[in-house]
């Protein structure tokens, strides 16, 4: 059972992430880490959302559900896992709420 945190997160500072997109496949380059990542459409949507507005897992699940019907099937624990993965890749950072 994944533990849901109320921690708020935001994507790395503006201009840190560079994007490229083809047919629903996204590539994001993190200029802080120098790493390049392949993201599917939902993960890209979540990361872009965290670029726009800092939020926690629960808020991210709600935002995603409003934006995409497939994302509506994802719940808060799914978003928590995604946030943890983004964090482990250095794509997001804690934001003081």
């Amino acid at each position, binding site marked *: 059972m994944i533990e849901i945190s109320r921690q708020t997160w935001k994507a790395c500072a503006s201009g840190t992430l*560079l994007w490229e997109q083809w*047919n629903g*496949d996204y590539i994001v380059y993190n200029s802080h880490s120098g790493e*390049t990542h*392949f993201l599917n459409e939902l993960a890209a949507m979540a990361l872009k959302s965290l670029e726009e507005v800092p939020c926690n897992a629960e808020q991210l699940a709600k935002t995603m559900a409003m934006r995409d019907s497939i994302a509506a099937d994802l719940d808060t624990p799914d978003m928590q896992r995604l946030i943890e993965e983004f964090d482990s890749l250095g794509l997001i950072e804690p934001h003081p709420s």
Partner: protein
Amino acid sequence: MRIAEFSSDALKTRLHTSGLYTQTGPFKIRIKSNSRPFIESLRFLYADYAVLDRQLADFHVALELQTNYRRWFHPQVLFKIDGKSPFQPFPNELSPPLFEWGLNWCIGTRAHHYLMLHSAVLEKNGKALILPAHPGSGKSTLCAALALSGWRLLSDEFGLIDTKSTCLVPIPRPIALKNESINVIRKLFPQAAIGPSFPKTRKGTVAHVRPSIMSVDQMDQPAQAAWIIFLKYKASSPVVLEPFDKAQSLLRLANNAFNYEVLGKQGFQLVSALVRSCQCLWLSYGNLEEVIERLDALDVTGYASTIDVHSA
């Protein structure tokens, strides 16, 4: 004056004394050596390269015979760059491939003012074809076959991308064939100028194809990339040439570059711009004649001729 115009003795004297100045693509090289196999190989494989006047060189390369007791029964040669030796000595008879590997090392570790793809690059009608290297892909075999069929060789090893213009900068050097591919190319192109085979190297048996005089004479003429082709050799397989996913192409090309991480954001922008502007294709082949015919017929009408690096 070209290197082939030296007599063997005159070349030997030059390499023993002041050194020979020549150029491959953007790099000027001063070469000194007292290794006979290397001198003979240089005269054959670099026959059409210009001999330059004494000047500032990017690389001061030397292949020096070792003077220790081994020279009596198993002579060894040391590769030096700017007076330092980055590698252990090699048997003297392997001095020609050692020169090629050593020069690759010099370029790969120093030329960070270019994005360096580990790729073969050839050009026809002003449009360049990038063949990224992957184990078992048959990159050098196909590169040699195309170079011997009228394509201009830009490089068998380095796709040098100019960071400002994004053009591919030629660096034509001998094409290194390995193992079975040596006889395949000899049989298909009996006229090819192929140097001696060097067995028992770390890469198996190696032999080098001399670049065409056209490739050497046009080494100052960059080319715009039009195709990126990821390839796989499969014995007896028909030629399959089909579009390849752009996102996957970007990841593969980034992994394939020697200095993608070194260049950071600029590396991503350059690779991204290349992928956006080129036709990305997957090729599997088992017959060289068939694949040459297919690649000769590639049509890129409508593809962008300039690349915007900064919109990534």
